[in-house]
């Protein structure tokens, strides 16, 4: 009680995980039961990389809770017709009726068998926001685990709005689902469109500001002057989708002009650089052991790569005998000497043609800029230096390359991810202090530790859980609607794999399946939580039409929106500040979230739920009970499907599996188990303790930021530069597909290259558009791109007035940005009302002129294509989502594409 005001005033600790760069910790001020203010949690200034602060997004959470447009009671649809042009006819119903209806449909689906006639799961789920919904869904994962096979195929942004190629290649090369510079120690970052100051969260923003403060340099290479270009030391306005050419030229300079400055001992001992490449493109091996061979300069013969005491050749070609292992059972005996290059020599030869002059003509950046940047990158790398981290000496290489969305997804993603990783490898700057780091694993197991996921492959590299492509084990019949295990070997088979897709394939197949493929079926039941693919995906018109055909959709609903417009039942769940959940925090996670602490944090109700909204854990428990899955659900909670196992060595807080448990009972047991886990069983504090303190942390070793230490310990090499395993995988996949008569994935198969070749990426877009839409690409002269905004990215903030108000201070929200001189040339003026049309669709918006954008590029920040979401539907802002062609032609081998298309503009009332 506040003595002066006589009011009940408290500050309630909780967390914000609205974006993948979370979590951050905050306090909500509550006065007489009403939330009034958000502020940082300054109790943890020293313990969290965000220094106890939160970004702008959680300041919207109070409006989010009290928004008068919220759905506050369960609803059922009364109009059986679905579509954008149909009113759902929502009628409020009781929770009993809503839950019984949903449970009835789930039971029907289960009773009909786990898979339908096409072999696909009958129940599908879509969650948004790069995994962040997990931190708001309470015990829903425990319930879902009881329902048999589920289909997470239907994407809501994955593959076109994420760092998709990086997720797969990053995990393959260095257990890096997400990649980040070691910003606290890095002095020189090459950023290809990595918009960290808009999307890196509090931690990323603070670390980069600190780095600038100590004189670190960041070169921002992208077609428009983003937020992060504004804060960078240099902006290089590269032509859209030509990043691989720029990076190839950087590598050319490193190899052919700076070779003596590379980390030669590292390349010899810690990479596949010395491995000999046999005539068919695979490693030359010792037949008896199948071990790859290297050339020993001392004995002047080829020996297995792991032979002790040898002096390996890094460069050169050598005539020798051996054995070569190709795809499937293909093999070649080289009984007479054949000429074999080292992998490094082959790399040097391959990259020779990619000169800065060559790249300058593609990227439209002067060759001397490219060369200068390459030389700066090498000279800043401190090759040969070491640093001590917690008593262990590691290489110190304060240079890194960061890739942004659309650079590291779709065609060109492989080239950029390979180049980025190779640039680090050439300098010994991968996974070492100051260098390029991975921060999380999602495809390898266990997900809790990058280090624990590392084991050695017989070829000397890390093992990788590739989806099988051999005859016996290839999954010829897709088990989910996006066919991820069938088409994408690198996607692995973790709980995250399905969501990586190709997620658009699930939507596309509903209309018409590709040749030699069973026609896909809609799911019997579709659960939608915290996602809105009807406006957030690509070619949103098509996606909306497809979801309108789904027979039964359950949407956990905040307000009316474009996806739940097609739903049958709306279940109003609590907003962020109304419900309970305990999550793991710290260690190393997404983006730049690598901490020197780890532990658990509580989200707790700061206010009573508004209306009849319910905690997700309550909803989930009720669904489990009503579908007859209570025991399985409780078992899953006890196992820790909701985040924390309830028992461990010396403690057991397991729930009685036969009973229905209250929300607080479940989370109290979870808090006790978490306390025991983090203290080695010494403390067992429960929910009340966490409600008071907010979070509990313990140290996390900085050594674990750097995977190089683990690889050193296990004697494992980095699998670069040569990509023998990818080539073999691609060949086998191609054979399997062709055996089924499938040729529509052939272009994707070309991505499996030992070294990437330059592909004319802009031309790929032009050709695909002309081929599929029967247009003359010359009529579409502009590249249309987007850029993240901290106010809006992730977070579902489009319906919040305050967020819109403060976002208005940042130029570009709500319009289409064009180069000022280009606009003048076209006779256009600031504020003109334009139609922006791609071959797929059109959008409208006001013209905003800026000098900080290439004349051939247009930019739309945010994607406000809402037509049902209250408040947001009034914006009148353009959105590119409906304009992006959803095509297999624009899908890369990892199953992703880019937020990118070609467009033309028309001034409404007259052509421009």
């Amino acid at each position, binding site marked *: 009680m506040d003595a002066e005001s006589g009011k009940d005033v408290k500050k309630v600790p909780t967390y914000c995980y609205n974006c993948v760069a979370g979590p951050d910790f905050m306090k909500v001020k509550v*006065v*007489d039961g*009403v*939330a*009034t203010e958000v*502020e*940082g949690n300054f109790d943890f200034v020293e313990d969290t990389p*965000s*220094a106890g*602060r*939160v*970004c*702008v997004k959680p*300041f*919207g959470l*109070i*409006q989010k809770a*009290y928004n*008068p447009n919220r759905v506050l009671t369960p609803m059922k649809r009364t109009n059986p017709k679905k579509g954008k042009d149909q009113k759902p006819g929502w009628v409020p119903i009781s929770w009993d009726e809503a839950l019984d209806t949903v449970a009835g449909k789930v039971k029907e689906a289960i009773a009909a068998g786990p898979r339908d006639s096409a072999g696909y799961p009958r129940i599908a789920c879509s969650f948004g926001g790069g995994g962040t919904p997990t931190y708001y869904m309470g015990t829903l994962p425990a319930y879902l685990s009881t329902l048999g096979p589920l289909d997470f195929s239907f994407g809501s942004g994955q593959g076109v709005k994420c760092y998709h190629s990086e997720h797969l290649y990053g995990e393959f090369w260095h257990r890096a689902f997400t990649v980040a510079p070691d910003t606290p120690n890095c002095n020189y970052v090459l950023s290809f469109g990595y918009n960290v*100051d*808009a999307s890196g969260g*509090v931690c990323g*923003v*603070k670390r980069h*500001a*600190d780095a600038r*403060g100590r004189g670190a340099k960041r070169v921002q290479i992208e077609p428009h002057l983003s*937020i*992060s270009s*504004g*804060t960078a*030391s240099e*902006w*290089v*306005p590269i032509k859209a989708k030509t990043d691989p050419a720029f990076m190839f030229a950087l590598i050319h300079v490193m190899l052919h002009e700076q070779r003596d400055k590379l980390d030669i001992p590292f390349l010899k001992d810690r990479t596949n650089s010395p491995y000999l490449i046999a005539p068919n493109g695979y490693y030359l091996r010792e037949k008896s052991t199948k071990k790859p061979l290297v050339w020993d300069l001392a004995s002047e013969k080829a020996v297995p790569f792991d032979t002790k005491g040898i002096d390996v050749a890094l460069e050169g070609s050598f005539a020798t005998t051996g054995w070569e292992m190709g795809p499937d059972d293909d093999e070649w005996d080289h009984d007479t000497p054949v000429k074999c290059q080292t992998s490094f020599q082959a790399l040097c030869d391959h990259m020779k043609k990619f000169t800065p*002059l060559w790249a*300058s*003509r593609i990227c*439209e*950046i*002067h060759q*001397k*800029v490219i060369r200068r940047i390459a030389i700066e990158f090498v000279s800043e790398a401190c090759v040969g230096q070491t640093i001590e981290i917690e008593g262990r000496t590691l290489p110190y290489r304060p240079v890194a390359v960061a890739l942004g969305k659309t650079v590291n997804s779709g065609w060109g993603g492989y080239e950029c991810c390979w180049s980025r990783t190779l640039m680090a490898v050439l300098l010994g700057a991968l996974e070492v202090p100051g260098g390029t780091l991975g921060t999380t694993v999602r495809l390898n197991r266990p997900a809790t530790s990058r280090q624990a996921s590392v084991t050695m492959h017989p070829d000397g590299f890390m093992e990788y859980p590739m989806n099988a492509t051999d005859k016996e084990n290839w999954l010829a019949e897709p088990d989910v609607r996006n066919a991820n295990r069938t088409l994408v070997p690198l996607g692995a088979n973790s709980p995250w794999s399905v969501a990586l897709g190709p997620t658009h394939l699930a939507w596309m197949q509903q209309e018409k399946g590709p040749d030699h493929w069973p026609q896909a079926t809609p799911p019997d039941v579709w659960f939608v939580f915290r996602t809105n693919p009807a406006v957030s995906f690509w070619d949103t018109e098509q996606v909306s039409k497809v979801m309108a055909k789904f027979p039964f959709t359950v949407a956990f609903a905040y307000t009316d929106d474009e996806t739940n417009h097609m739903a049958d039942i709306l279940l109003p769940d609590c907003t962020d500040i109304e419900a309970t959940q305990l999550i793991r925090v710290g260690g190393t996670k997404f983006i730049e979230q690598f901490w020197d602490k780890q532990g658990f944090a509580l989200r707790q109700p700061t206010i009573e739920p508004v209306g009849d909204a319910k905690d997700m854990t309550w909803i989930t428990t009720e669904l489990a009970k009503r579908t007859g899955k209570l025991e399985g659900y409780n078992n899953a909670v006890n196992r820790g499907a909701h985040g924390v196992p309830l028992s461990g060595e010396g403690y057991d807080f397991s729930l009685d599996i036969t009973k229905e448990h209250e929300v607080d009972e479940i989370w109290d047991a979870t808090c006790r188990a978490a306390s025991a886990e983090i203290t080695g069983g010494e403390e067992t504090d429960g929910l009340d303790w966490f409600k008071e303190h907010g979070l509990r942390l313990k140290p996390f070793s900085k050594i674990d930021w750097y995977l190089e230490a683990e690889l050193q310990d296990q004697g494992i090499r980095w699998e670069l530069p040569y990509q023998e395993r990818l080539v073999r995988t691609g060949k086998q996949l191609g054979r399997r597909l062709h055996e089924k008569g499938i040729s529509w994935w052939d272009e994707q198969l070309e991505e499996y290259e030992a070294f990437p070749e330059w592909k004319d990426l802009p031309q790929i877009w032009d050709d695909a558009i002309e081929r599929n839409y029967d247009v003359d690409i010359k009529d579409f002269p502009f590249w249309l791109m987007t850029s993240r905004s*901290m106010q809006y990215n992730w977070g579902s903030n489009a319906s919040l*007035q*305050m967020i819109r*108000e*403060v*976002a208005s*201070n*940042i*130029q570009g929200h709500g319009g289409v940005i064009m180069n*000022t*001189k280009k606009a003048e040339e076209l006779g256009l003026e600031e504020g003109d009302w334009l139609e922006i049309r791609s071959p797929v669709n059109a959008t409208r918006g006001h013209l905003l002129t*800026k*000098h*900080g*954008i*290439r004349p051939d590029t247009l930019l739309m920040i945010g994607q406000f294509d809402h037509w049902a979401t209250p*408040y947001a539907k009034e914006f009148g802002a353009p959105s590119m989502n409906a304009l992006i062609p959803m095509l297999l032609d624009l899908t890369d081998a990892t199953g992703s594409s880019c937020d990118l298309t070609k467009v033309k503009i028309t001034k409404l009332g007259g052509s421009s």
Partner: protein
Amino acid sequence: MTRWVFVADLNRCVGCQTCTAACKHRNATAPGVMWRKVLDMEVGEFPEVRRTFVPTGCHHCENPPCMHVCPTTATKQRDDGIITIDYDLCIGCMYCSVACPYQARYKVDIVNNAYGLTKMANEVARDEENLPRKAVAQKCTFCADRIDYGLENGLTPGVDPDATPACVNSCIAGALHMGNIEDPKSNVSVMVEENETFLMHEELGTKPGFYYIWDRKHDADEDTAEGGEE
């Protein structure tokens, strides 16, 4: 002597508007009113362009034109430099708003709700803070109540969160600071001493209490982006 000032490090600011939102929360300002905001500024022509984010608001001038033109003495200057508005004396003439070169002042005749006619629970709860500001001039108060509370409780403004303006507390980039410029050992004095700074519209003689750290070398280093085809 004490003079509270703000310091914004433009090399660190990313324009995120967290300070803008934090100010709105702390002070319950009406929709459309931003006592603190961050400008998004572009200078130059393609490809030689710079983009800079500039926090602004009331600069709490030593020689405040807003105060000089106030016909009712509603605008005053505290001994510690903070410019205040006495809402009971203000008649809403807005001479001050015209006189202020920093566009720091607002006037709201009708306090709109965030969502039309419906007043949300948090808006009802904060009506008593907002209503006295109706139809009079309003602007950044420097969160003087927090500063005063902090000093009364042995805290240091600019260091201890409970004694520090909400905008400074919230800054995620460590760009925004406040402190006593009269104390040569204070956080802000050290920053101003050790960095190149400027004052906005210094030529107008307002002697603003808002320092900007800006590395001019950053501006001069133009041997950088070179667009144009080879």
